[in-house]
């Protein structure tokens, strides 16, 4: 009997293994694409399904059976841990600028020379070539770029408020309790750096301390430190001012038309998300084909419309239909996305380790020193006392009962 069970188990495991290997095999090629969540036109709500379109394109034009395996990540750091662990291999990834620099420096990216190997690379705006993270354009092809600006509610902020147009709006005590701030150190310190006129990539400790002072000062007027909650708070009007990405402003504007957006005159942050091929990719040629396909007019426009972020692709921003469509969402959409002063935009570099540690330390200090911090201790104390009282009373009652019996 036992032998039977054992052999049955062995058979089951073997069958399972066979099943898995069968699934992995087959004559079609699988292209592994690893992108941000919600960062492509995927066919939802009647849009174009770009991955299906690519499979179709491979079948009809290249005569190949290709399956796109599309998976997503939530942050650059997630992507980094996946790539650097070497557990799985991807063919196309979409890291942000500083992450391209880090991955390339550590040898995780393949040199693809897009100028030579990706036909549609010629349509990329010159502003997004030869950037700091890929000075010789060897590793990456820009996919989208985004800029940080200030979103405010015109019903809650006075019309002739002099601080509109400046980071000062986020420090204005008049709007105490309805200002939101980023809940991650890099972006939050960024706003303070821009406001005080220092570089967000500064390696000078005094600059960082000054920025922390500013954030501490801001803390009394801030309603909360948020990331995703910003959508609900701004759409619902429970907050009046928040720094966020231009592309996401349109999503909020669709829900609440009294929101407005501006780029602070002191300067702000810009980032690029680029397409790269990891060095352990199994299908370099197909990956390049995919990158090229993403830059073709129809596909790039579908993506730009789905994501609402700006596209560095000339085929997109010079397309009149696209411009008309965007301006339908918001009358100044094209202006906000494409018409800004590049001189005032700063990229966030991957900070050197000592600066990053300093930043995190200052951030912790800022967060812990909150008014909630004290309350937490009080609540904990109350709970402990209540529990102790409960057990003591119970023991006393029990004893009384026992003695009564």
């Amino acid at each position, binding site marked *: *009997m*036992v032998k039977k069970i054992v052999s049955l*188990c062995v058979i089951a495991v073997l069958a*399972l*293994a066979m099943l*898995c*290997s069968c*699934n*992995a095999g087959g004559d079609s090629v699988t292209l*592994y694409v*690893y992108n*941000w*969540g*919600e*960062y492509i036109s*995927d*066919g*939802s*709500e009647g849009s174009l399904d770009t991955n299906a379109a690519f499979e179709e394109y491979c079948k009809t034009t290249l005569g190949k059976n290709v399956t796109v*395996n*599309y*998976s*997503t*990540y*939530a*942050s650059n750091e*997630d992507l980094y841990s996946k790539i650097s*662990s*070497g*557990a*799985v291999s*991807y063919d196309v990834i979409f890291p942000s600028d500083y992450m391209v620099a880090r991955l390339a420096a550590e040898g995780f990216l393949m040199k693809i020379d897009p100028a030579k190997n990706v036909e549609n690379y010629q349509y990329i705006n010159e502003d997004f070539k030869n950037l700091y993270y890929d000075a010789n354009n060897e590793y990456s092809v820009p996919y989208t770029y985004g800029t940080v600006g200030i979103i405010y509610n015109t019903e809650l902020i006075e019309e002739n408020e002099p601080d509109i147009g400046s980071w000062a709006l986020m420090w204005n005590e008049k709007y105490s309790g309805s200002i939101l701030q980023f809940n991650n150190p890099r972006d939050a310190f960024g706003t303070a750096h821009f406001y005080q006129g220092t570089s967000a990539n500064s390696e000078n400790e005094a600059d960082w301390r000054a920025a922390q002072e500013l954030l501490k000062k801001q803390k009394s007027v801030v309603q909360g430190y948020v990331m*995703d909650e910003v*959508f*609900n708070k701004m*759409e*619902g*009007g429970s907050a009046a001012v928040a720094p966020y990405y231009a592309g*996401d402003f349109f*999503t909020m504007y669709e*829900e609440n038309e009294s929101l407005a957006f501006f780029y602070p005159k002191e300067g702000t942050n810009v980032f690029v998300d680029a397409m790269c091929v990891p060095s352990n990719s199994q299908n370099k040629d197909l990956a390049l084909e995919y990158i090229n396909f993403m830059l073709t007019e129809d596909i790039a426009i579908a993506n730009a419309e789905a994501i609402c972020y700006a596209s560095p692709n000339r085929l997109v921003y010079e397309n009149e239909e696209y411009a008309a469509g965007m301006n339908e969402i918001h009358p100044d959409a094209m202006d906000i996305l494409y018409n800004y002063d590049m001189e005032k935009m700063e990229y966030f570099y991957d900070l050197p380790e000592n600066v990053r540690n300093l930043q995190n330390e200052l951030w912790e200090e800022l967060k812990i020193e909150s008014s909630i911090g004290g309350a937490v201790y009080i609540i904990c104390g109350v709970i402990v006392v209540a529990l102790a009282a409960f057990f003591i009373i119970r023991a006393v009652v029990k004893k009384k009962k026992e003695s009564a019996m």
Partner: protein
Amino acid sequence: MKTLSRIYMVLVFALLYAPIIVLVLFSFNERGSLNQFTTFSFYWYAELFRDATALGALKNSLYLAISSSVLATVIGTLAAFGINNLRSRYIKTVIRSVTNIPMMNPDIVTGVSMMLLFVFASTMPFLPLKFGFVTMLIAHTTFNIPYVILSVLPRFAQMDKHLTEAALDLGCTPAGSFFRIELPYVLPGVVSGLMLGFTLSLDDFVISHFVSSPDFQTLPLYVYTQTAHKVKFSMYALCALMVFAILILLLLVNFAGSFNLGKSKVKRKPKTGVKENG
């Protein structure tokens, strides 16, 4: 005091269920917004069933949860049987604590160590291990086993040893007595271990995060990656559906549990009678 305790109870339940109720309520909101409820509609549910990636992830999740919990139940039940029959009390305690370690271990430690193990194993020439379903299955089975043992072992300990001895005396083979005496007796424990394993595997995120591959994405992994940008409202619909599914499963388990309890009570009575006579 009574009203106070009632208020307390209401408060606890309100805090426990408010998020879920909000989620379920707004999954029926036609306009994707959390601020105002406009029209009741199934729009997001329809949108969910058009989302092939989410459905694929759901299928993978169910597939993995069922196979890993069944596998863990088989291994865990046999292990509990073995542990229960150990003669030395000392070794028994040691083994019981050792099997508890994976349960107490932070998920992240289990996840990272599993990943390192698999990365190492995949470099072996004779082991064609690829990240995907197999690694997920191994990881999930591993963290499920202690829970199965935990729920089965007490049933074995409760069992009257003389029952097996009597069966063996009467000419039953050891394997036969396992299937006819022990297994039916511990069945409630086995079932609850299976259910526990199923739900744990279904909602595990941390360990899966480390051992998954793009070939095999489970639902928690998929939902997590959605948070990079604004979470789709069809995810609300999906979570609402899962809440309902779990609710139904729980009701079923509770009914099955009370049914089993009634049966075993009837069984136990004559047994104690026999014992007293002996």
